[in-house]
């Protein structure tokens, strides 16, 4: 075990997989010699060689397409898109190709590609360094979508993603890279080293895709969340004293519906929280599923706490970010009726 922040844990996952499997390649903009703008690939080129971890042209569509071609050959490429906000040029390759190749070829070909990308706000990055586009991927059948919330999960989930035989969108909450940010932007953020889940096994291990984690047990209300919002929800429960059960979904597709149903049947109340915009967001899917599976257990309408339906405005970082106060307000609404 070593105490790692999230970047170090991701780096360790890539390191382990590069060593374990010669078919794993890591590439993307600035990931080679430099080690990535967030340092996730630092030292990997030097350790594993030029052809295992290298720089790529600024062409997201090309990056993903080349990754697909390599996958078809039999490799397990891990592509980095520098910010999720820049993934859109690759959307056609992801939606029409990576996600469908298994189906359209009748299982003849498949694409074991992992696309890593930092997402989310809280860094004063303005609208092109802050977006949360997960719903654009969860809506696409054939893709898996993963969002870790701590170093230990980050490493174990990334290893599972790389070993998975289907394309995986691996969304990294960049605000959590250095510490478990809980939305209280005016307080210092603890380093990961003070957090239990920064104890990361050094070698190979995996966290299976499709399993949620109950990060706080409670009986009053269920909060469904992922990424940065896990820590925000924990802070909201702490601040209000509301006995919330907080579920870190960890994998959006495939979703751990059993964990959700078990919890909501117990609490009878549910809040869904994400940073992404509300309309047609993943929270809408969660809300619908809870309604379908738990209707007779629900005491109140499912509440959504999300980013506003605007682009992420630079000067309004903390008015936009759905912090602990807004999650608390959502919990109160769910408890009101």
């Amino acid at each position, binding site marked *: 075990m070593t105490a790692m922040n999230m970047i170090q844990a991701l780096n360790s996952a890539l390191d382990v997989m590069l060593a374990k499997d010669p078919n794993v390649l890591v590439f993307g903009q600035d990931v080679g010699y430099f080690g990535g703008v967030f340092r996730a690939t630092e030292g990997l080129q030097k350790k594993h060689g030029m052809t295992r971890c290298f720089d790529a042209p*600024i062409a997201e569509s090309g990056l993903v397409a080349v990754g697909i071609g390599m996958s078809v050959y039999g490799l397990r490429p891990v592509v980095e898109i520098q910010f999720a906000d820049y993934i859109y040029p690759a959307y056609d390759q992801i939606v029409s190709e990576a996600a469908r190749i298994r189906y359209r070829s009748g299982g003849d070909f498949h694409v074991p590609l992992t696309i890593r990308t930092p997402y989310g706000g809280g860094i004063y990055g303005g609208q092109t360094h802050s977006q949360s586009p997960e719903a654009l991927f969860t809506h696409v059948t054939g893709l898996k979508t993963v969002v870790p919330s701590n170093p230990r999960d980050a490493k174990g989930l990334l290893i599972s993603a790389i070993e998975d035989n289907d394309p995986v969108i691996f969304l990294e909450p960049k605000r959590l890279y250095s510490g478990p940010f809980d939305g209280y932007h005016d307080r210092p953020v603890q380093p990961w080293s003070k957090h239990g889940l920064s104890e990361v096994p050094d070698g190979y291990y995996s966290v299976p895709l499709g399993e949620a984690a109950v990060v706080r047990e409670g009986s009053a209300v269920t909060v469904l969340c992922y990424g940065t919002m896990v820590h925000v929800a924990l802070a909201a429960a702490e601040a209000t004293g509301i006995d919330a059960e907080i579920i870190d979904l960890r994998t959006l597709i495939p979703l751990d519906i059993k964990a959700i149903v078990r919890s909501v049947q117990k609490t009878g109340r549910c809040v869904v929280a994400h940073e992404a915009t509300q309309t047609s967001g993943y929270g809408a899917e969660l809300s619908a599923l809870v309604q379908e599976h738990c209707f007779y257990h629900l005491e109140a309408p499912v509440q959504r706490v999300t980013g506003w339906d605007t682009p992420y405005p630079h000067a309004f970082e903390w008015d936009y970010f759905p912090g602990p106060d807004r999650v608390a307000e959502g919990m109160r609404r769910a408890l009101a009726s």
Partner: protein
Amino acid sequence: MRNRGTLSLHIPEPHNRPGDAPDFSNILIPPAGALERPPIDANARALSPYAYTLIRVLDAEGRAVGAWNPHLEPQALIKGLHDMMLTRAFDERMYRVQRQGKISFYVKSTGEEAVSVAAAHAVEASDMCFPAYRQQGFLIARGYPLIDMMCQCFSNVRDPIKGRQLPVMYSASSHNFFTVSGNLGTQFPQAVGWAMASAYKNDDRIAVSFIGDGTTAEGDFHHALNFAAVYRAPVVLNVVNNQWAISSFNGIACGEEATFAARAIGYGLPGLRVDGNDFLAVYAAEQWAAERARANLGATLIEHYTYRAEAHSTSDDPSRYRPTDEWQAWPLGDPVARLKQHLIHIGAWSEAEHQALSDEIATLTRETQREAETIGTLATGSRPAKATMFEDVYEEIPWHLQAQMKEAGV
């Protein structure tokens, strides 16, 4: 016989990394004034050699030589020097302001000021510019108020774009300067579309756009060239080859065999390669391309060969990936120093006048900063009203956003 040897994957690497001595001996630099200036209606195919050389006007002694000399009046040259110096001073000041925590981010254009400034001088004020994020010099050369640029960086109540974007993402329709996008390359084909519209309307205005060397790898770059060629769009397409795209040298963007200007050849467009630190050469190439576009002869791709003297942005540390003193060794020098030398050479400028201008600019930027900070900075929290964050998503605010405004308490 078929070659059955095993294959190996090539990964390009720059010549110099941290710890190496800067070495630009591989760069071919033809003497200034060596090239003919072809007629503006020259056949694109005949122009292909211009994609592999460098159009240069200023020689080592500061003389303007050869057929590409645009023969500008001293006053125009002094204005060019002024705008480049103002751009550099503005960049310095905003960089320091970022370091003081008053703004979130900044991008300097140090060392490549001639590209934006000379291009702005060579086209008409009514021509439409579709910039990348490093064209502050273009906006400054068009006389956009410095105070508005600073207020944009401060995201304060006077920020013309209402605090919506990171610093340097200006928008100035009043100065025919399109809103800067953080998503690389998108502006290039948009400029072509604007130019097609101008042609459709039998207008006489042209479009001018800029893109970084790294960004030419995006599909949008290629869409721009293809549409421009197909419709003979009146547009000047500029690649700012400052050698680096964050930590990636330009061989990652286009391989080590071709030039960026040569990208034009396959599309049937003229591609000119220019000494980007030579104000006169940039001006001349831009003017040639603008005249050609205005004569209904279509688009030109211009590669400006320059060097990104500073970090990519305030988030970057170039000492991690390139020799720190590379810029000092850059064989094409400093655009400000070269234009100054030329002005002194022709007797239109002196060290004393240069110092006076430098002082004047320092005072102007300092006072403008003071004025902007009085209005507010990101740190002082003087922002546009919170309700404005829900405006401009649509022309009219739909019910669901109105509901969210209420929830947000505005």
